[in-house]
């Protein structure tokens, strides 16, 4: 079992490097760097705001995405509840089904959505957005292959993928694992281009 995972991981790594090297051939843009954020605390009802360009939790309006429990907001659109921060940016999200490394092109503009009164750009609830909830084990698992391409508050692009909802990202979380701690990978494209 473990060796299969190893082989697959190696394969994924290979695809990743292969795609990176093809970017190098273009000689136009510097490939984006994938950064891992661990244990972002979203256990409070006040949203924890994150900036991709600064790679940190921020308290001002220059945030791109914000977390509270299983809800994820984007800095663009309408405010729905009092606990939410004001949307001051022009942010939006497009949901792509793929591996993280394979999302290299920005999705079409029509696929981006902002937080609305009816629904968030990243829908809440099991199976709707980024996670599934198992009624038997009561565990929340990020759905694999859901990559979120974010238009940031100032019109740049980033992509992110959630890896875990539990503290220290255990491979098999249990009910004892502390929840509402996000671990995710992101890549931020600072240049004006259409690829990651």
């Amino acid at each position, binding site marked *: *079992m*473990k060796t*299969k*995972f190893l082989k*697959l*991981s190696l*394969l*994924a790594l290979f695809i990743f490097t292969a795609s990176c090297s093809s970017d190098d051939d273009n000689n136009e843009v510097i490939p984006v760097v994938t950064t891992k954020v661990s244990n972002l605390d979203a256990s409070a009802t006040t949203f924890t705001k994150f900036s991709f360009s600064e790679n940190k939790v921020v308290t001002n309006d220059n945030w791109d995405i914000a977390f509270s*429990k*299983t*809800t994820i907001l984007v800095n663009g659109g309408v405010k*729905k*509840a009092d606990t939410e921060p004001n949307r001051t940016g022009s942010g939006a999200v497009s949901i792509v*089904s*793929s*591996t*993280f490394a394979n999302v290299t092109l920005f999705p079409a503009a029509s696929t981006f959505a902002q937080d609305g009164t*009816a*629904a968030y750009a990243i*829908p*809440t*609830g*099991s*199976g*709707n957005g980024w996670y*599934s*909830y*198992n009624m*038997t*084990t*009561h565990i929340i*698992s*990020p*759905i*694999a*292959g*859901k*990559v979120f391409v974010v238009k940031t508050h100032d019109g740049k692009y980033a992509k992110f*993928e959630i*890896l*875990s909802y539990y503290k220290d*990202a255990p*491979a*098999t979380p249990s009910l004892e694992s502390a929840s509402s701690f996000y*671990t995710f990978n992101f890549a931020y494209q600072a240049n004006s281009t259409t690829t990651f």
Partner: protein
Amino acid sequence: MNFKITFFTVALFFQISFSQEVKKDSVKTNELSEVKVTTATRTERVLSSLPLPMTVITSEAIMKSGVTRLNEILSEQTGIILIPDESGFEGIQMQGLDAAYTMILIDGVPLVGRSAGVLDLSRVSVGNIERIEIVKGASSALYGSEAMGGVINVITKRPKKDMFSGSLSYRYATFNTSDANTNLLWKKKKFAANLFANFYSTDGYDLDKSIALKNVEPFYNFTIQPKIYYDFSENLKLIVNNRFYDMKMDNVAIINSENYKGDAKEKEWNSQIKFEHKWNSKLYSEYEFYTTNYKNDSFLNDQNNILFESAYYNQWLIRPEIRTTLSLGNDKLTGGVGLNYETLDRTYFEKSVNFNSQYIYLQYDYNPTEKWNLLAGFRYDNHSEYASQFSPKLAVNYKVNENFSLKSSVGYGYKAPDFRQLYFDFTNPSVGYTVMGYNVAEDRLNQLEEQGQLLSRVDGVNFIEPLKPESSININLGTFYKKNKLRLDVNAFYNSIENLIDTRVVAQKSNGQNVFSYFNISKIFTYGLEFNSTYDFTKEFSVSFGYQYLTAKDKSVLDNFEDYQYIRSSDLQTIQIKKSDYFGLYNRSKHTANVKFAYTIPKIKTDINLRVFYRSKYGLFDTNGNQILDKYDTFVDDYFLTNLSISKYIGDKFMLQAGANNLFDFTDPSQISNLAGRQFFGRIQYTF
């Protein structure tokens, strides 16, 4: 693993090579008296000539195995797997179909009380069973809803001639488990009576001592089943059959690290009044009135002994039915008409609900020549809550020669939406999601919307069309072979199920959680092969081997695999997988097998019975983030179980028995909750 495969291959070849030797050795031995069965056709038929796949467990086999409850003896049969549900009840998986699709009958009438889809089979004692008949494959053409995967009919003992006989038995086993039985049979001329009583108690078992909850908490139950028979004449006979069952169990829970304690009680009453009327040599009728009530009540108190939670479930079924069989030479025409009145009152229902249905069935058992048997039938159900159902079935048996026959059947099966799927109204107290039955969802959603509890409703969801029954097409193709010391049957099966009912999100609440309701969603299919054989090496020694291969998959997963193609590796990276990596439905093993050895030593009147069971790996839920079971998921490893029993007869009247279930003490506490460790037992039985 390799060793295990080799072991079974060797076991199989062992048998084949020996069967070849038999041909040289032309001694004809024990002509088994032909087993007669009733469940498959509702008339008496010889097992070997039936065009349907069927298994019979005799009272002798039950006794020699040393087990005491229905779930235990069923779990020893080829192709039957017991699966624990959330409530801890063990349900039957047959031909890869869930427990909700097998109808359980006692003396031809159904048990009720599926609070979460699964019947608690441990409530049936095997102490007074004459035989258990298992029909596999869709049987809705005779039995209607629930019989989509098959029917299990438990037939109890009946005094046939003037007699007074009985048995007393006591069995003690590990976990302080006691089982005391008495069964008295009496008949004198026109009167006959039978009284069965059983008391069972156990301390339960605890596989993980580090948590305060046990896998099975202590409980006791008793069963009393009095039956009275009166023959008005040779041609008109009355049977009054009652069964009372009462269970009490410790109810323990840990909610948010707080301990709660209470009781859980189950009460069941079954009453069957039946007239058997022989009009003449050609016409025979049965008039039956059946009533059953299943109740459970449970409560939990907190540490200060203040009531924290209580739940109840109270279901009634009333069923009058008339059956008539007309014999036309070699052929038989059987018809039945009846009605069901069902009510259910339970926690999480707004009010008590009831179902009404009427049905009629007809079956023609046609024997044009010695070699051919054709069984054609249908059943029509008219129901108050869902569309009427027409369930046809056709089965053929062709006797190639005295020893070998071919059989095939095609049938339609269905399962009506149950009370829960229509009327549930449940909100999980700790997480906050809500599940609503289909028939009450619209009104409840409107209520929640008015109260401002809804964030949004999912577009395009409406409850205008009634929820459809789940339906299946079942095909079986098999053979039956019996010659000298070898008995062998093979059956290939295929089930295709449509309109499978599952939950789907219908709205989001302002707390961020979902509201679910039930919909006809997926299509699944199962196919496989079942093999059973018995070889009598000598009069004293016989070996039987059983094997089932099974594939069970969700068609919608195969059709929309792009939605499931990404998984997360152990270091949480996303990886793409292939369609062929899809393993199938949860809780299904590709391979299950058993080998049973029976050895008799006449000199010392002793029977030795050793049974080995194998189940290949299976998955319980998705562990890598793509919501399906694929080959990279974490599986429950394959395992072997061994049961041993030794019976010694003293004189004609006494029997002593000792043995062990799960002899090698195999457990997997984190993944297999219903597998207790080794259980030694001893039993004494007195028969007169």
